[in-house]
């Protein structure tokens, strides 16, 4: 388990040295622009503009990092043969995989937290009177991070058995499907066979549901989020990541390196 931490910290160091965190500068520019735009429109929705734009940027930047770096976590090491020397050492493959996952999730935690704090400060700057509900944006940022962890796990899984490009497509595909998976329950059930109906129902509950983590609207309007939802979403992400990582370990442990 200690080796997982060592690998994770090195992965974090890689992200820092590869200047991944430079995206924060970009985010800062977006927030500045948002503050200016919000100031110009100022029709009672400064807060909404700042929060929705900020959260969208946090989510989008995070997704780009999670998908592209997530897919590269293992495939790049296989490609460049950097993991040969490592895997010959007393490291189990699952320890390596978990370490890589942990490292990127740690990177995303730092990145997302920094952006979240930036957004919060921008909001406090624009808003004259802070309310208690403003803390909802911090919950929203936390949910985005949970979502990103799940995306990283998926990217890792796909990169274990297919090419990086396909892995990116699969991950993006699952993500988009995961936003609308609830729509499966609204399909016209009458025209489908019972088997099909049951299948779509199971699918709609078992596919990763990324809409769970979206509380942007609530955050924009400073609505409080019940603690039980925070707990449920945390558990959901943890359980789903475990499932996906188990599958990834299963694939990767049997994989022949080039």
């Amino acid at each position: 388990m200690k080796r997982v931490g060592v690998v994770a910290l090195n992965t974090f160091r890689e992200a820092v040295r590869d200047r991944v965190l430079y995206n924060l500068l970009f985010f800062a520019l977006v927030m500045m622009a948002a503050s200016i735009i919000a100031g110009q429109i100022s029709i009672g929705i400064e807060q909404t503009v700042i929060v929705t734009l900020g959260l969208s940027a946090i989510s989008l930047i995070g997704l780009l990092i999670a998908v592209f770096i997530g897919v590269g976590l293992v495939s790049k090491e296989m490609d460049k043969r950097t993991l040969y020397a490592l895997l010959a050492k007393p490291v189990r493959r699952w320890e390596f995989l978990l370490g890589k996952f942990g490292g990127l999730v740690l990177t995303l935690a730092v990145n997302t937290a920094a952006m979240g704090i930036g957004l919060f400060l921008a909001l406090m700057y624009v808003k004259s009177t802070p309310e208690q509900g403003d803390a909802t944006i911090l919950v929203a940022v936390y949910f985005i991070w949970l979502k990103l962890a799940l995306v990283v796990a998926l990217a890792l899984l796909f990169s274990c058995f297919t090419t990086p490009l396909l892995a990116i497509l699969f991950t993006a595909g699952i993500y988009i499907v995961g936003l609308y998976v609830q729509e499966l329950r609204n399909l016209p059930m009458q025209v489908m066979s019972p088997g099909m109906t049951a299948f779509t129902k199971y699918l709609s509950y078992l596919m990763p549901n990324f809409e769970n983590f979206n509380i942007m609207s609530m955050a924009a309007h400073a609505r409080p989020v019940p603690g039980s939802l925070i707990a449920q979403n945390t558990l959901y992400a943890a359980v789903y990541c475990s499932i996906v990582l188990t599958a990834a370990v299963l694939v990767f442990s049997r994989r022949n390196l080039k």
Partner: protein
Amino acid sequence: MLVAKNKVMSAPAIETENLTKEYPHGFLNLKKRTSLEGLNMQVETGEVFGFIGPNGAGKSTTIKLLMRLIFPTAGSARILGKPISDIEMHRDIGYLPEQPYFYDYLTAAELLDYFARIHDLSAADRKERVQRMLKKVGLETAGKIQLRKYSKGMLQRVGMAQAILHDPKIVILDEPMSGLDPVGRREVRDIILELKHEGKTVMFSTHILSDAEMLCDRVGVIVGGKLRGVGAPEQLVDVKTQGMEILFELAGQSVAPVLAKATRSGDRYRLQVPEAELYGAIEQLRAAGARILSVAPVRATLEELFMNLVEADRAQAAAIEVSGK
């Protein structure tokens, strides 16, 4: 059970049993290409074992199988008497991959420190070892430079350092000399001899015979995925000299008959003669006023040995194909 125990007691350092690796390829992976075929081989404790063969013969495949980077189609292998799937046993192995590449965002010192952490070494121990290893491979001044700025030879040295960093009992090196300049090769040879002196088992692959001859107690020759012979280097390679080579300097013109057979470059000449005619040739040269620089036996190169084996291999394959039709 008892038998197994006895086997452990007298177990060789590395032991493979019918180790086979096939790679599926072609449309829908229906075809199979055999990269290693039924390898049975032992490396004894404390010896330096050379694994020689032309490129693509299966040397790297064997080593990767031992390191569990790839998994065998059939057969098994044991290191230090333990199955290779035993992860704890890897504490006692040092491995240098072929053409090693490491995280290029780290410095050599950071990389070695990272690997030392993986080996669970204490902070003080790590610092001391990293410095010692860098010095050993001649990188003490380059330890603070990111690996992306390293040359191929420097990476090879870093790879050497990480292989012996944790004081392993067995060191497995995949082409340790490739990409190195003469000085680097010399240093690697010194390290291998030092390891041998410390009582470690060393197995390395190479396609350069002179390296193997100079260092190895035994060598295994592998061609076309099959082990063709194991033994002391001089047993394997035909060391009968194929003649003598004389290197000499000669200023001005001369009409000595032996000169007709010599090849000239500047003032220097190189002359190859059968062993029986050596002294006659030297007499002639002395008479002509030449200054003799060196006299050395001409020996079969590993390349020639390989060529013979490869040709035999092809002939056999052709024969099988013909008989099959």
